């Protein structure tokens, strides 16, 4: 950790941010540093343990190398160094959520009222009390976030959303930018650069949570009408209030299960996006939702998803590490999604899978967080790249 990490204080604090006192800023920064230390300093030791202890033993026993990540996991399971790293990583995640919740609960009366006031016009949100939670959302609290994205512990509670908003910095150390919207910004940049003539009029974002990546799309296409859907009521209410607070008015948040988008007409969107969505789906919804996307997407339109890269062709040890979240961070579908054949999946849902492309979209380095680029203005190596896959219909 040769370079100093940005402070949590550098985030853009929109109207819904709670007041965060200096002690809590210290704690947030501590956890950020702890995460970076675990990935930068401790995790390499896990690889060493694999290469020096576990792999030789495996080879001796089986006369070959492990064939897949499952074999690596079984072989690594009782390795002491892995256990410590895992225990620390899990614990840091739990500390992040406790800290986030304790901070937002202090100001929850104020923030609850602000959200209510920002939503009083009711012109950018459509809630549906009949919308039920799919099992892939309700089975466990994903990434160990108490209450997941949808629980309201008291009337009009938005603490799950508020805590998520202020806490995501702790796992990304500012790479997502001041508004944690780097992925969506990157998508906007990529479209502007690669497809300057593509001017979507209607955009649908699926599984928007609090709109981190839907809002920058609305900003990139100010003349477009953006609809962002999710099943999680408190997240949607927070998202709609947050968009207002940020002065973004061409976006509507709707409570809707993406598996049933009957409300949307055939071929009614030019662009359909998701961000970090598919790994929280399930076998059934991956098919039904993408089939639905194909139906609502105009011919000539684009659907594109920001998602962690697939495991395909990655060394088995790397697959095993990438897959940590599946069993250890309450992300049960993570690994299964990441081993899926993307082209074949698109074909199963009515697209021409052979047209699938994968790319990296790049967000600008946020100078408020990381300072100005070095002499020469090159952001080489600093600009974060977000993995994406998509298909033109």
């Amino acid at each position: 950790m040769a370079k100093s990490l940005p402070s949590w204080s550098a985030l853009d604090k929109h109207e819904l941010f709670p007041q965060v006192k200096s002690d809590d800023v210290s704690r947030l920064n501590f956890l950020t540093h702890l995460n970076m230390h675990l990935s930068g300093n401790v995790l390499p030791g896990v690889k060493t343990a694999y290469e020096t202890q576990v792999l030789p033993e495996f080879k001796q026993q089986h006369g070959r190398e492990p064939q897949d990540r499952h074999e690596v996991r079984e072989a690594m399971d009782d390795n002491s160094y892995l256990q410590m790293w895992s225990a620390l990583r899990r614990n840091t995640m739990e500390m992040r959520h406790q800290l986030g919740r304790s901070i937002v609960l202090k100001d929850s009366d104020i923030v609850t009222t602000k959200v209510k006031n920002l939503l009083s016009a009711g012109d950018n949100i459509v809630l549906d009390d009949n919308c039920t939670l799919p099992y892939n959302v309700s089975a466990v609290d994903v990434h160990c976030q108490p209450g997941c994205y949808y629980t309201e512990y008291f009337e009009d509670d938005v603490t799950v959303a508020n805590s998520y908003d202020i806490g995501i910095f702790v796992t990304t150390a500012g790479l997502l930018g001041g508004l944690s919207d780097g992925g969506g910004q990157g998508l906007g940049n990529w479209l502007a650069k690669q497809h300057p003539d593509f001017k979507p009029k209607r955009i649908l974002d699926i599984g928007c949570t609090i709109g981190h990546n839907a809002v920058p799309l609305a900003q990139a296409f100010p003349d477009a009408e953006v609809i962002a859907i999710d099943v999680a009521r408190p997240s949607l209410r927070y998202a709609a209030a947050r968009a207002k607070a940020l002065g973004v008015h061409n976006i509507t948040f709707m409570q809707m299960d993406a598996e049933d988008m009957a409300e949307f007409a055939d071929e009614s969107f030019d662009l359909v996006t998701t961000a970090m969505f598919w790994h929280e789906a399930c076998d059934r919804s991956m098919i039904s939702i993408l089939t639905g996307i194909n139906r609502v997407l105009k011919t000539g339109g684009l659907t594109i998803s920001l998602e962690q890269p697939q495991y395909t062709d990655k060394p088995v040890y790397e697959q095993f590490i990438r897959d940590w979240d599946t069993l250890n961070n309450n992300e049960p579908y993570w690994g299964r999604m990441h081993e899926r054949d993307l082209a074949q999946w698109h074909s199963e849902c009515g697209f021409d899978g052979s047209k699938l492309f994968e790319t990296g979209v790049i967000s600008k380095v946020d100078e408020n967080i990381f300072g100005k680029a070095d002499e020469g203005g090159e952001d080489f190596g600093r600009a974060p790249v977000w993995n994406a896959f998509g298909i033109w219909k």
Partner: protein
Amino acid sequence: MDFAEKLSLANTRAKGKRPQYLQDKQTEQVMAITMALAMELHSTKERLASLECLLADKGIISRDELDNFQPSATETAKRSLDTQEYLNRILLVLDQEKQAMTSNDKSVAEVLEELKD
């Protein structure tokens, strides 16, 4: 919402059975408590550093005065609440274990099976 309620909501555990990583449970809990203490110590150090800067800048308080400080009744009451919150945070792992004892979560591996066709 009262203070006690906020404390308990802050320590809500995430639904889903927690894996155990270390050989025995108590060791793992001690580790969690230790890391929480590390964070608290860190923020205390920073606060002290800020205080020292301010004191030095303004030339107000001597080291002696700090050592012999007597908090007022209001300050004492505030510190009690702070201490309760402090313990609530650093003993999180035991609080959540207590919550877990009365829950009936499936393992994430079991849920993965259910998510398959």
